[in-house]
């Protein structure tokens, strides 16, 4: 009787594990049997809120696309010592052409880091282009 109870328990655990795996934990299912290039962490770039390395990376990956001297869609930000609180407000609220950025894109702590970096960065960085990895050439 005891053995039967153990067997039934094991079966029940397996059933729930399979059910959980297939119906609730779909992200964990292997996408492909072969090794995925993108899943090698050293290659994968992650650009969402909570994933940024620092304010400088955010500037180069997002802001510089419009705010470099050579592009001129948005005003040059570096070397002007804008107040961080003003910058943070603009990022969240947008102005005219400038879109808003949500906390899912840049969280509050990252936004503070970005604004402080912009406040202190020299104007000369606005003259440089950046490569695709956000590293200054």
């Amino acid at each position, binding site marked *: 009787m005891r053995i039967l109870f153990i067997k039934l328990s094991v079966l029940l655990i397996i059933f729930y594990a399979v059910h959980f795996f297939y119906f609730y934990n779909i992200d964990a299912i292997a996408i492909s049997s072969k090794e995925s290039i993108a899943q090698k962490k050293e290659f994968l770039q992650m*650009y969402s809120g909570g994933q940024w390395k620092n304010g400088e990376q955010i500037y180069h990956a997002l802001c510089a696309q419009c705010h470099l001297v050579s592009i001129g869609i948005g005003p040059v930000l570096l070397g002007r010592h804008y107040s961080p609180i003003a910058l943070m407000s603009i990022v969240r609220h947008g102005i005219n052409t400038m879109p808003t950025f949500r906390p899912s894109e840049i969280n509050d702590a990252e936004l503070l880091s970005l604004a402080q970096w912009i406040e202190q960065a020299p104007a000369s960085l606005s003259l440089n282009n950046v490569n695709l990895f956000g590293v200054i050439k």
Partner: protein
Amino acid sequence: MSVTRREFFNKSAVVLGSSLLLEPLHHSLAKEFSSIPLAKGLQMSHIKEAVLEFRHLLGNENVLIDIQKLVPYTKIMIPSPDIQHQPIGALMVHSVRDIQGVLKICNQYRIPIWPISTGRNIGYGSAAPATPGQLVLDMRNMNKILEIDSDLCTALVEPGVTYRQLIDTINIQNLNIWVSVPSSGGLSGPMGNILDRGVGYNRAGEHFANFSGMEVILADGEILRTGLGGIANSTAWQSYRWGFGPWVDGLFSQSNFGVVTKIGVWMMQKPEAYQTFVIGWDDLEKMTKGIDVARKLRMDNVIENGVVGNTLYSTAQLIKRSALYKGKDAIPEAILAEYFSNKKMPRWGFVSCLYGTKEQIEVNLKIVQKAFKAEGGNFITGKDLTGDSNASHMERVMTGRTDMNEFGLYNFRGGGGSAWFAPAVPARSADVRRSYEITSKVFRKHGFDYVGGFLMGVRHTEHVCDLLFDRRDSEEMQRAHLCFKEAIQLNAEAGYGVYRTNTGFMDQAAETYGVAQKMFNKKLKRALDPNGIIAPGKSGIFIH
């Protein structure tokens, strides 16, 4: 009195910054919702209970209901009042399981949700819902690139993956892959653009023709993997689109029948060589004849992409309108003619990029030059394009790179108003001419400039033009609203339906496609989402 940009920035801090950063940690729910319109039939008591459950499921930090925190979800550029697109909250989800939990709660309390991927459908409604009182389901944090197949040039991505993220991930590995990007590629992402049937610029530029396989969470929480995704350990989910039996992927495009959480993206194999060329035409007649030439070349696969643009479109990216004309009405034709004549610029331009081996390009370039010669256009290629910022931009987006140059358009008139008007038109001179004449006439009548062009498909073009207006000026916004409405109506009457539209005009666009389609969509909606919780109003689809 003029205010310097720095003064403006710093003054903004006083008004906005303190509330952004120093908001009280606790508000009463009644206060939080007091100024937000609720969805029809929704009761405050239900929302309060649901919010508690959302917080339990996702954590307090991922449930945004404070009106200040919602501001980034509400900035729209379209000619439609903000209040009509005001969400009641936003939920930041991180997994499929989160979404299943959210859907369960939404079904229980009949709360509508508006799913967004990167939320960058700029000029089409951005991140805000089609109707007020919805919760935005923000999937930006689901941003894993699950796979890149370097042999087949496919990627499997989540909703929050951006084009920039995908391109950077590809380039850091030196893979021979070019991603097709839309003009917003610096900020937007492939899932949202594919699902809204957006268009890019390279060989894979027709984005809804260049994907394979979706994972969809249905309203009841069930997970559906389309096509070969139904096969356990599928090997071809991202390479063979059709699977077995009915192909249902189209049901989840521009619709509200489910929440797409994974999609297979097709990209272009980097060729050995490429060659960009531009043709300039001085008048409409030559441009429309050029469309016929381009279509024949496109149907023969001599060219694989192409954009015909009114020169004001490229010029508007670089200068302010006030440099051309200071009136509030449309810029008079005589002024445009004089400006472009003085600048020795054509009125229309066609840009394309040849791909292949050097030998293929040499042959195809000769074919292209010969074909266009009859129309008398000014053919430019190679070194002659050096220094042309617009040509440089087009070459970048046609060769797997991205930039935001086209956003320069938004500074042309200023004021943050933009609505992309986009009818699908046969790739034939008579049709292109007719749609252009109807549209430009409507724009001019309402005081707006025609800033647009035609993206070459094979048998069709996407006639895409940007209605630019000052959103701060209520009279101008009202004119823009009437203009857009009339443009949809007159193009439809001439047989040109919009292939995509913004959240303020989805009902009208759906009406132009007839009762049968509308009723069919409603039947599907009722069957798949009986409580109507997923994105009511998307493409004019409701359960009632």
